[in-house]
């Protein structure tokens, strides 16, 4: 037989800044190799470590091949069932619940970012098609910062991140692209090769901090106060853009008075941990270089005062005259998805005279448990692993015990799958069509099937189509999901004339030849015409005041239970994204997954030595890890990576950030307002 080597276009659909276009090498129907698509102007033919490890992901011995059912739930007594049996069992349950409660409100789903391709909104579309049901609202990731930006400039749009190559000073404030957005370093280094300076501000000395010309360590959650302190210094020295603040800033006088009268440099230094000479030095850098690009990461808004942190940093970028300037600007998030109709997400179901209920994703189990009339009885989980990654991970066990059927769709047997009745094998993005854009760069790319589905795996869309057919066989007209519509037809419907125009495409099929970039110069605020009510950059926000928030960006020192004195930080690991960590085995035995990093002083106080087994605990829960002494870590902080056999989320506080409602329907999660104690495990 002649070898049949084909190359297909795929797009990495992980919840990641870079959303890389890939070329998949397929030999005789088997994926053998990946390369970055050189036609993608942002990724430029390179992938990250995880991307290069995708053949491991697809053909992992752990990958689920068939639908499974376990009796009883949680027992691990899995039995292989056919798709026909799975679809019948689920459909019969749905119809029985509909009959019992005279509505579909007892049906709910929990779905987020396991695969952020457009067609994965099929899960929401499938539920919408049943009429009223129990929906999901909110966002565990970045919603506090989105609101902070909206209060300041009306809406939040990134400048084109490729434009960072024209910056003179780049400030990475609380992001670690070396591990989570590696392609951005190309543009940053292009600027540095032309003489630009890189400053990294982070509580943790990350790999990105290691790259920086200047690294400033700051106490977790005090980033906003640091920005206010620097603003105060700049304002007192008259080093701000006088014309910009005069003409384009709302509330400049209040802000200036607040900086002068309320913000005290001694307090800034003592709470942030940054010395005054460093504040002065950084303030001078900001004024000396032009333009300055500021990249505000997601971590610093995962605090009770997270939204305020983002408002203060954004204000600093604005008063130094960098907002709306090419090569400058404030980077956080690119809401490119807003251009699209998102037909699956917005699919309207039949009007059954009832109103859907919404549950906050950050308090899912407690809110679902509080629902009566009817209670939720069936839960569908897709693209998510809440028993590892949810903020209320402990409450899930109780929720699951109240449910009559739990269905999880995943590629692997996750913590969540282990507690489900039925687990359905999901297709990887190499096995079906999809369409992908980034929340960072401005490229759009088509994902085409490269290989046949792995054993009996199916995409979320294919599952929605087949479940709909089964439901309608059992009860004609039960769902109005257009089950005849193919993946390609769903993709075609996303391409409105407006979308085609913005990307300079005649047809979506043009994407088969390569990715497309937004045509317009997308650097926001070049016209300084802000989308706020006042048309100005609102450093004093009436909108925030109306929402019971401070009108000015203010710092609030948080209080916490002193019996757990160590703050817990839980960033991403290099081997994966949240609990998706397929690259781990290829990278080899990297112990980062099961270690806790602790400062030598904190360790000595507790009699802990490097490699000691330790228990990390608080009122919420406990996990065990191996201690790694790290003198670069600030005293009073311990650091654990996400995921693990004993998920780190057992230790989260369940507190909310200060903002998030405006854009996402509920406040963000204060994931870093968690405090713990660490104790050495004594050997018997």
């Amino acid at each position: 037989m002649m070898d049949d080597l084909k190359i297909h276009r795929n797009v990495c659909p992980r919840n990641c800044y870079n959303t890389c276009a890939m070329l998949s090498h397929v030999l005789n129907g088997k994926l053998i190799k990946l390369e970055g698509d050189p036609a993608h102007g942002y990724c430029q033919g390179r992938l990250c470590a995880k991307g290069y490890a995708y053949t491991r992901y697809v053909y992992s011995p752990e990958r689920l091949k068939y639908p499974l059912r376990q009796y009883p739930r949680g027992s691990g007594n899995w039995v292989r069932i056919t798709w026909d049996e799975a679809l019948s069992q689920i459909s019969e349950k749905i119809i029985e619940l509909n009959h019992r409660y005279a509505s579909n409100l007892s049906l709910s789903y929990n779905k987020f970012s396991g695969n952020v391709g457009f067609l994965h909104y099929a899960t929401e579309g499938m539920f919408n098609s049943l009429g009223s049901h129990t929906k999901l609202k909110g966002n565990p990731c970045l919603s506090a910062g989105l609101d902070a930006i909206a209060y300041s400039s009306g809406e939040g749009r990134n400048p084109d991140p490729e434009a960072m190559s024209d910056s003179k000073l780049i400030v990475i404030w609380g992001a670690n692209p070396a591990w989570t957005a590696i392609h951005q370093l190309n543009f940053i280094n292009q600027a540095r090769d032309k003489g630009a300076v890189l400053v990294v501000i982070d509580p943790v000395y990350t790999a990105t901090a290691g790259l920086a010309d200047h690294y400033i360590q700051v106490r977790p959650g005090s980033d906003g106060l640091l920005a206010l302190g620097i603003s105060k210094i700049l304002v007192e020295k008259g080093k701000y853009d006088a014309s910009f603040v005069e003409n384009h800033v709302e509330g400049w006088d209040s802000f200036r008075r607040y900086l002068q009268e309320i913000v005290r440099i001694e307090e800034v230094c003592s709470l942030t941990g940054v010395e005054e000479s460093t504040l002065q030095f950084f303030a001078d850098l900001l004024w000396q270089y032009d333009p300055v690009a500021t990249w505000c990461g997601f971590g610093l808004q995962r605090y009770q005062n997270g939204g305020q942190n983002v408002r203060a940093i954004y204000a600093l970028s604005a008063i130094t005259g960098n907002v709306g300037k090419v090569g400058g600007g404030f980077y956080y998030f690119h809401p490119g998805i807003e251009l699209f109709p998102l037909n699956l997400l917005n699919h309207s179901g039949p009007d059954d005279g009832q109103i859907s209920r919404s549950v906050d994703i950050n308090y899912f189990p407690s809110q679902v448990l509080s629902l009566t009339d009817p209670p939720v009885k069936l839960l569908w989980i897709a693209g998510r692993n809440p028993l590892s990654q949810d903020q209320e991970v402990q409450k899930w066990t109780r929720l699951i015990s109240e449910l009559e059927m739990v269905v999880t769709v995943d590629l692997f047997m996750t913590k969540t799958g282990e507690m489900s009745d039925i687990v359905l094998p999901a297709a990887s993005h190499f096995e079906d069509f999809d369409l992908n854009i980034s929340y960072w760069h401005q490229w759009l790319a088509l994902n085409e099937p490269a290989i046949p589905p792995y054993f009996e795996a199916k995409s979320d869309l294919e599952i929605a189509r087949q479940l709909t057919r089964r439901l309608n066989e059992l009860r004609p007209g039960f769902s109005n999901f257009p089950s005849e519509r193919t993946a390609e037809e769903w993709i075609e419907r996303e391409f409105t004339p407006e979308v085609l125009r913005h990307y300079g495409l005649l047809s979506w099929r043009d994407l088969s030849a390569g990715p497309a970039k937004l045509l317009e110069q997308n650097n926001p605020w070049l016209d300084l015409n802000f989308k706020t009510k006042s048309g100005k950059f609102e450093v004093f926000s009436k909108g925030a005041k109306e929402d019971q928030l401070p009108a000015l960006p203010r710092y609030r020192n948080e209080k916490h239970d002193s019996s757990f004195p160590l703050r817990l930080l839980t960033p991403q690991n290099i081997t994966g994204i949240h609990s998706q960590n397929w690259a781990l085995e290829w990278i080899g035995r990297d112990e980062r997954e099961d270690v806790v990093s602790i400062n030598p002083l904190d360790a000595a106080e507790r009699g802990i030595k490097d490699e000691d087994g330790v228990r990390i605990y608080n009122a919420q829960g406990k996990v065990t890890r191996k201690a790694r002494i790290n003198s670069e870590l600030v005293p009073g902080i311990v650091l654990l990576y996400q995921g693990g056999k004993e998920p780190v989320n057992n230790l989260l506080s369940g507190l909310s950030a200060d903002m998030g409602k405006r854009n996402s329907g509920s406040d963000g999660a204060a994931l870093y307002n968690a405090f713990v104690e660490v104790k050495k495990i004594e050997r018997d």
Partner: protein
Amino acid sequence: MTEQIGFLFNADRCVGCKSCEMACKNENSTPLNVNWRRVSSLKSGKNISISCNHCESPECFRVCTRRAYVKRRDGIVMIDVNRCDGCMNCVSACPYNAPQFDIEKNKASKCTFCLPRREAGLMPACVSACHTGALSTINMEQYPNDTVATIEGFPNIRLTKPSIRFYPVKEKARYWIKN
């Protein structure tokens, strides 16, 4: 020998992202636990990416009783796996852990400088994958003047004369929170 191809490494630019390491596995389909290129952290906090350095005086070549190693005219050191009997002499002799031992096959294998890619006019997979320009290739006869023979944390180079040059590591400004 007509030339000696080598690597050029800039530790100031390497962020330890491991794209090179994974790109190598992706390109060469090496089994689990066989990583021809590896990224590790140095005590200095810098990262280093090491593969076979296609040495001028390769120890692997010298210690191999089966004459499985050859040094090509372009300087690339190759192993003929068919000759390898799994004695592991090369594995223990190489200062850079370049020959990697596959327990299942009972054979050593190592970096080929991506010979098939080179023949197609491409850079090695690791170099193509490097996002920061930390890893590149050079002709060892014409290395840049501002480079040095080794950096702190790299294994001793005296024995084998590895075909790799380094940019000297620069001090950077760090503002730590005082304990």
